[in-house]
């Protein structure tokens, strides 16, 4: 069967057969880089297009439909235009940080891709502390945002960046607790182990209501962490015009824009992995026949299907809810999400220890 | 209170002002000399706090340039009794100034800034009297009848 695993393994074997180890590694690393860039570009185009279409249908309108059939080249045109826009930098900015910020954001987004299990046996780096790695790296992105906001020498940017900082660091806690509850259930930080532990059913079905609560908290927290509405404090168009990227235009703005969508993809991928079994097909306990039928659907489709469903949910949030105010946002975290997730974690620990889950 | 009754009461209270029944409401007209030196504030306070009047709602404040003099026009209403009246003060054309009502009616603060801007009437005691609508460097007061701006104004 043609799958990502077979392709990557086949490629590795073929390369190993014809040359020595060092060039193989180099070629593979180049291939990884190329694949990552392609994935980035493709995801950016697809997600922005998806966002616009989802928004359009929810808002009873058609959405982009004039550039290519169904408007599928709309985002391509946008990207091309942004690239060809004047490469412009205001005079009063802190030049070094201003230029560095988009890179920081992009590098962070790229790095989190490393432990992502896109399909069965298809992962860039099978690190044994995958979950921990993801939480650690994802907190770096706030530095990029803060850097951008500070360097812009613009009051709106600064306010947006400060908001964003407070918001991301706060919501990381409850996101962390939600992730921990799955770690407690599986007893491993390795993303592959977590997926394999869901062979007889995804955690969302196995773990009773506490896992649902953890999932909901996870979704809320990652929506906030990615600065998405209703938590888009950092941008808050109607308040701060553009927030931290007010002074960014053209390609640099495109990078922020892209990174935002990649981050959504990543957190939804993590969510799908933790709660919905990543590439693991839909299995029910020991119904071998049923499970076998499900296995016919390639694992990559499972992964992307679940991820895109979660992305859709996050978009659905955005087009339904009003924005919170910054103090309410922090209130929500400190007063509701944090205590609930903390106690939920303890509850899940009890379930894990007692083995009450299915 | 009906308009006639109101008229009587006003006449009783302000015997030296010229009071007449306008098209809609009683009109109370003061010469500037009558209300100079802070007396105008007293008049307004009386109108606002006398139990029979309670004119607590200044719903329109404006000015009319009569070429020889300015007329400040205050439209007052009582939100309790729903009767209204017009208070007018005649100001001289050379150096028009009058007491600011911004501490009696808070809305007057912005209205007076607008009138200062467009008519050039100085409100003594106003907390922040500067142009609000036109730019700071604008010359002249455009709603005056003698205002002429050949650059910006194209006459039809």
């Amino acid at each position, binding site marked *: 069967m043609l799958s990502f695993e077979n392709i990557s393994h086949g490629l590795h074997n073929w390369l190993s057969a014809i040359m020595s180890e060092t060039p193989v590694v180099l070629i593979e690393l180049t291939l990884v880089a190329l694949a990552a860039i392609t994935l980035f570009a493709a995801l950016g185009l697809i997600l922005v297009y998806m966002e*616009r279409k989802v928004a*359009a249908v929810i*808002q*009873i*309108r*058609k*959405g*982009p*439909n*004039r*550039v*290519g*059939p169904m*408007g599928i*080249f*709309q985002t*391509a*045109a*946008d*990207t*091309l*235009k*942004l690239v*060809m*826009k*004047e490469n*412009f930098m205001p005079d009063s900015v802190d030049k070094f940080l201003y230029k560095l910020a988009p890179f920081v954001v992009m590098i962070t987004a790229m790095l989190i891709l490393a432990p992502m299990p896109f399909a069965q046996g298809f992962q860039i780096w099978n690190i044994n502390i995958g979950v921990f790695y993801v939480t650690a790296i994802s907190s770096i992105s706030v530095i990029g945002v803060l850097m951008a906001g500070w360097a812009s020498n613009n009051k709106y940017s600064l306010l947006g960046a400060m908001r964003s900082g407070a918001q991301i660091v706060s919501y990381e806690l409850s996101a962390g607790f939600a992730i921990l509850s799955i770690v407690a259930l599986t007893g491993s930080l390795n993303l592959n182990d977590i997926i394999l532990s869901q062979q007889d059913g995804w955690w969302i079905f196995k773990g009773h209501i506490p896992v649902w609560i953890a999932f909901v908290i996870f979704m809320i927290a990652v929506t906030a962490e990615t600065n998405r509405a209703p938590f888009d404090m950092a941008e808050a*168009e*109607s308040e701060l*015009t*553009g927030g931290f*990227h*007010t*002074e*960014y*235009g*053209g390609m640099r*703005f495109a990078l922020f824009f892209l990174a935002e969508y990649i981050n959504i993809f990543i957190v939804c991928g993590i969510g799908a992995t933790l709660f919905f079994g990543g590439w693991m097909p839909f299995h029910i306990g020991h119904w071998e026949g049923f499970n076998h039928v499900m296995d016919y659907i390639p694992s990559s489709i499972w992964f992307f299907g679940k991820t895109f469903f979660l992305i859709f949910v996050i978009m659905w949030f955005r087009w339904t809810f009003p924005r919170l105010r910054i103090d309410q946002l922090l209130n929500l975290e400190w007063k509701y999400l944090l205590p609930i997730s903390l106690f939920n974690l303890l509850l899940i620990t009890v379930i894990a220890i007692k083995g009450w889950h299915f | 209170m009906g308009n006639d009754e109101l008229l009587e009461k006003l006449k009783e209270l302000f015997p030296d002002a010229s009071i007449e029944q306008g098209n809609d409401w009683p009109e109370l007209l003061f010469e500037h000399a009558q209300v100079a030196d802070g007396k105008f504030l007293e008049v307004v306070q009386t109108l606002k706090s006398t139990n029979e009047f309670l004119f607590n709602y200044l719903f329109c404040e404006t000015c009319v340039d009569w070429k020889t003099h300015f007329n400040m026009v205050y439209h007052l209403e009582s939100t309790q009794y729903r009767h209204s009246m017009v208070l007018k003060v005649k100001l001289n054309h050379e150096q028009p100034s009058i007491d600011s009502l911004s501490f009696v009616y808070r809305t007057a603060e912005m209205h007076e800034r607008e009138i200062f801007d467009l008519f050039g009437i100085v409100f003594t005691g106003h907390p922040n009297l500067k142009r609000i*609508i*036109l*730019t700071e460097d604008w010359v002249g007061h*455009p709603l005056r009848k003698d*205002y002429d*701006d050949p650059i*910006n*104004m*194209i*006459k*039809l």
Partner: protein
Amino acid sequence: MDVKITQPSLPFPGSIQDTPGGGIVLSKLDDVINWARSNSVWPLTFATSCCGIEMMSAASAKYDFSRFGFEVARATPRQADVIIIAGTIVNKMAPVLKRLYDQMPDPKYVIAMGACAISGGPFFYNTYSVVKGADHIIPVDVYIAGCPPRPEALLHALITLQEKIRSGLTRDQIRAQFSEDGK
């Protein structure tokens, strides 16, 4: 002006075309870039008066200017491509408008929407504070008459602007060309 575009998808200028020799040629890079620019015109959220409401109507579900890819209204000029002057420009506003226009990165376009933006419109005579036409302050690419113009008229203007961008001509060139055509 007649609207020439009737099929929903615009032809991609960089598309592969068959030549008699059997080979393929790519059209010029410039055409591709102009194609991208014309299809991705992000407006600045800028409205001064009545025409702004019709601009909102054009954004609303019934007219939906997102079909053209215009819906990404940016609040900051750094990310905007077109400034739709929707409403009267008065003397106090003129420096602000100039500043906003100046702060936009190139390439940038201007649409003057409605009588006020074109010429001062209803406030042309006997007013002391109205700028008699926004093109006294910043160069304007497309003028839409109307007070306020219908949302469809705005869409028409956007299509006109797209045509201009796609032709790759400068303001003066296109003016000269279309004056001959009697447009």
